[in-house]
């Protein structure tokens, strides 16, 4: 028993429960922002503490079912960072929607715990538990705006579709268990490496691809994304877009880089097909969106496609490109969603048209949108450029020139729609000329995320080093 392996999870759970208990004892605590401040302080100390935790393949818990390797720790830090931003964004956002802010902040910790369990799981049941803990908490968070019908609808949709996808995933897991008699990653892959192939393996792979594809919103398992993203409270949408998606990716990486590593010839064609579909559909449909959150939903679908290029490259550099991209993707998306949050706080709407004449009303917010969207579009000097460059170069390096060319072509389409948003924001005049009021916490989130987007873009060296070190320790 090595408690330090699960210390972050324990910390997250305790802080979550602490916030709930405080809320039960002091009713005023539930309705005040204090819970949020407590959450942020707790998360910050977790983040700092995480840098002192030992991480290696030998840092395990319960029979190596649970590992704290560099990869797991990296993802945990990513999730904690996202949670900090999300809680800071929520402080003022929640006001019109609910009186029970305390529970909301507590719930983000449970979602966070689920993600962290997924990052460390080295066995399928553990992975599944983490995934469900995350999913159920997200359902509650999605439906948190009780007066808003869309929010409720989104929550309901999310839970029903998640249940279906979980069923698929579980079916795949039971097939795997039936085939190999094992559930831990290392055990299964050692059985596979003996060469006993059954046609059922193909089916298990398909089930797992579908079940995990649902979480990272691969086409055609993406259909919940726009509806849920639109209905959920904006900070939660951001959490889904960066946290839940990254959690899906860590599971994806462990399963496909590790468990199924002998079956690349089977899953690669499937994965390539899904990637092509994701790139095409995600980017093309984004063109037709009128709501910012739906638009960002399709943009996040498209980004899953770009990131998958790294999986398809199937190399150390491919993996490190994924990790690097996830970092910058976090900052760019948080910047964009923080911008949407500010827009909602000030106007109550989130249509793209509501951005008209924003430059006059809030140059600060406009600059944040500019930097974040340019990063998502992949234009220098923002981080998105170097991230895409890294991914595409590695894909070409591994012989997927056509795929990289397609991805590059679709990122051109993407530039088109990001610019449509920026054009709306810069041009035109709004009858409403009142300048925006952006709360300090939100402003800080924006400054940090946009600042990091520029820092990574201008000086990517340290960040690629981190990504490469982790990729090397994993593969």
């Amino acid at each position, binding site marked *: 028993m090595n408690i330090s392996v699960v210390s972050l999870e324990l910390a997250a759970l305790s802080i979550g429960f602490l916030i709930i208990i405080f809320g039960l004892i002091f009713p005023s605590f539930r309705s005040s922002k204090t819970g949020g401040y407590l959450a942020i302080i707790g998360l910050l100390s977790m983040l700092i503490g995480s840098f002192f935790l030992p991480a290696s393949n030998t840092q395990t818990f319960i029979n190596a079912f649970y590992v704290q390797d560099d990869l797991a720790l990296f993802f945990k830090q990513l999730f904690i960072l996202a949670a900090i931003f999300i809680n800071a964004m929520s402080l003022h956002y929640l006001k019109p929607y609910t009186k029970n802010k305390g529970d909301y902040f507590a719930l983000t910790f449970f979602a966070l715990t689920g993600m962290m369990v997924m990052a460390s799981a080295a066995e399928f049941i553990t992975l599944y538990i983490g995934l469900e803990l995350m999913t159920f908490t997200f359902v509650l968070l999605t439906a948190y705006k009780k007066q808003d*019908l869309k929010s409720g*609808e989104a929550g*309901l*949709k999310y839970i*029903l*579709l998640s249940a*279906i*996808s979980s069923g*698929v995933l579980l079916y795949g897991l039971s097939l795997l268990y039936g085939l190999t008699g094992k559930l831990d990653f290392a055990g299964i892959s050692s059985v596979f490496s003996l060469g006993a192939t059954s*046609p059922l393996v*193909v*089916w298990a792979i*398909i*089930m797992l*691809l*579908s079940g995990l594809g*649902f979480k990272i919103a691969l086409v*055609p398992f993406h*259909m*919940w994304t*726009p509806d849920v993203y639109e209905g959920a409270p904006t900070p939660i949408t951001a959490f889904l877009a960066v946290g839940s998606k990254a959690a899906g990716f860590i599971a994806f990486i462990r399963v496909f880089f590790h468990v199924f590593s002998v079956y690349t010839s*089977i899953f690669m*064609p*499937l994965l390539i097909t899904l990637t092509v579909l994701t790139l095409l559909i995600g980017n*093309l*449909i984004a*063109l*037709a*969106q009128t709501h910012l959150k739906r638009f960002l939903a399709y943009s996040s679908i498209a980004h899953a496609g770009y990131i998958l290029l790294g999986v398809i490259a199937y190399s*150390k*550099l491919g993996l490190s490109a994924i990790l690097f991209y996830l970092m910058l993707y976090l900052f760019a998306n948080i910047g964009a969603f923080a911008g949407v949050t500010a827009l909602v706080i000030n106007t109550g709407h989130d249509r793209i048209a509501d951005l008209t*004449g924003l430059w006059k009303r809030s140059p600060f917010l406009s600059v944040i949108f500019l930097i974040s969207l*340019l990063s998502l579009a992949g*234009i*220098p000097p923002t981080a998105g*450029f*170097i991230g895409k*460059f*890294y991914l*595409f*170069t590695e894909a*070409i*390096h591994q012989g997927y*020139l056509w795929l*990289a*060319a397609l991805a*590059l*072509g679709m990122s*051109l*389409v993407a*530039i*088109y729609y990001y*610019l449509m948003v920026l*054009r709306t924001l810069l*041009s*035109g005049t709004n009858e409403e000329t009142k300048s925006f009021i952006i709360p300090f916490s939100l402003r800080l989130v924006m400054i940090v995320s946009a600042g990091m987007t520029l820092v990574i873009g201008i000086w*990517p*060296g340290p960040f*690629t080093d981190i990504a*490469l070190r982790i990729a090397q320790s994993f593969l």
Partner: protein
Amino acid sequence: MDQFAWLIPTLPLAAFLIIVALTYRFKLLSAIVATSFSLGSLILAISILIQKIQNPKTTETFINWLTITANQQTVLTLQMGYLIDPLAAVMCLIVTLIATLVLLYSIGYMKGDEGFSRYFAYISLFTFSMLGLVISNNYFQTFVFWELVGLCSYLLIGFWFFKPEAADASKKAFITNRWADFGFLVGIIGLFTVFGSFNFTELSAVIGLHQNTLVLLILGLLVFLGPMGKSAMFPFHVWLPDAMEGPTPISALIHAATMVAAGIYLVARGYILFASVDSVMIVIAYIGGFTALFAATIALVQRDIKRILAFSTLSQLGYMMMALGVGSMTSGMFHLTTHAFFKALLFLGAGSIIHAVHDQDIFNMGGLVKKMPITVWTFVIGSLALSGIFPLAGFWSKDEILTVTLQHHFTGLFILGTLVAFLTAFYMFRLIFIALFGDKRSNHHAHESSWTMTLPLLILAILSIVAGLVNTPWFYQWTGMSFSTFLFFKEPEIPVIHWSIAGLSSLAALGGIFVAWIIYAKQHISADKLAERFKGAHTLLLNKYYIDELYGWVFNKGMIGLGKVFNFIDHTLIDGFFDGTATLIRSTGIQLRLFQTGRLQQYALVLFVAIAAMTIWGVR
């Protein structure tokens, strides 16, 4: 001196940062910071050029901006650095000189504008990016700054973004360039994959061994797409005329003298890549030649003074590209240099006129020669230089291009070039006779502009007169140098005047002026009747061969349409027949009924169909 070369782009960057961080509120101070820092760069650039001429030696310095090593083996190295050779030094001089003059000019031109400080910040950022591109020692850095100048151009075209046309034009420029850069990026990643380097020097050492191979043909053409976009070669030309929505000094700096010339510069910089495959060179030559003619014909009928100049720029860029394509880097770069001076002059002159008349339609001007003599006469000098009249700058560079075209046996292109010379003179003097001379065509109250605006005009006018002399036999006899000295280290090519070619092209230019004089000054032939007579051709030209309409149709109907179709399938069709799930939630038995409302069922159906499809494929 070379060790200070990095300061040339850094000074404008510092100006940008200072304006953004400190002086944003103090308009005049921002302008002074931008102008003086740019002047600092100019002085540095001049001293580096002088040193390069005295001591011809290439200096290259770089740092590894990003190194990615796997298994102790470096797999990806991205450098940031500078390569100072005479080519870069000349280009630095052009950029800093025009930038400084434009900044000075803008103090008067932008007076009272709401975004005064923002404007000077953008120009400083642009100058930084452009210089970063010029001194770059590798394709990767070039690409990064290439995109940055594109971004600055986007911000500057859309400077008056509250005008919808400006916002649309900036978007168009950005996106058109992205399509071209798509090829450029694939090309340079391809170069890296095949030859293992982005560095110009390293690449030129390896590329020479692979002459006329298929892989170089493909990579060369892909990389060439970049310059085609930036220098607005056909079929990427559509963005440049629209880019005129930006403030006029911007058009002078970015869309006439420097950024659009970056494409020409890149072809010159990576010349070995293109010159190693004959067919790539032929493509470059013919695309250049075609663009020259194509744009010149459109310029014949335009009414907007800036658009005429924009099409003229397109045409001249085509000329330069043609020169590079037929195999003469010297003449291409020489024309780039002279063109930078006289085209910047023409744009700034046009800006001065627009500033006075508050209109861009040449048919609303007229009678300006008495009101604003400095502007008008410098404009005439610029036009004469552009038309290639002896002994102004354009004469020498245009003559040089026509000579090399003939020498390399591109007779067709030579005839085309001469025709373009005729058309150029015609449309420029059409503009002059209509807009500057004659009677007032509208009730305007024009007056001469302030000294900050006229001084740059005078300096550029002098340069437009004398800049061509550096590539004349006389200059060679006097100093032992010619323009090629500034580009290469080898023995200078000795300039010779081919009197027959010079005579022919001068005749074409004078002919153009003469015809314009007959039609528009003397009005012996009615322009309207001509237009009526050749109605079809006139409409075709007026609508710029309908290329914009074609693109608009393809993108708006095609791409966005496709997006809408997919959205419809994704949403309406698959979502089922039901739109108001929300209304249903209000009623009782929510869960049960929601299950029957289509949306969810359809989503689940898609999921299962996908799994089934994958299974069929997987077990097949």
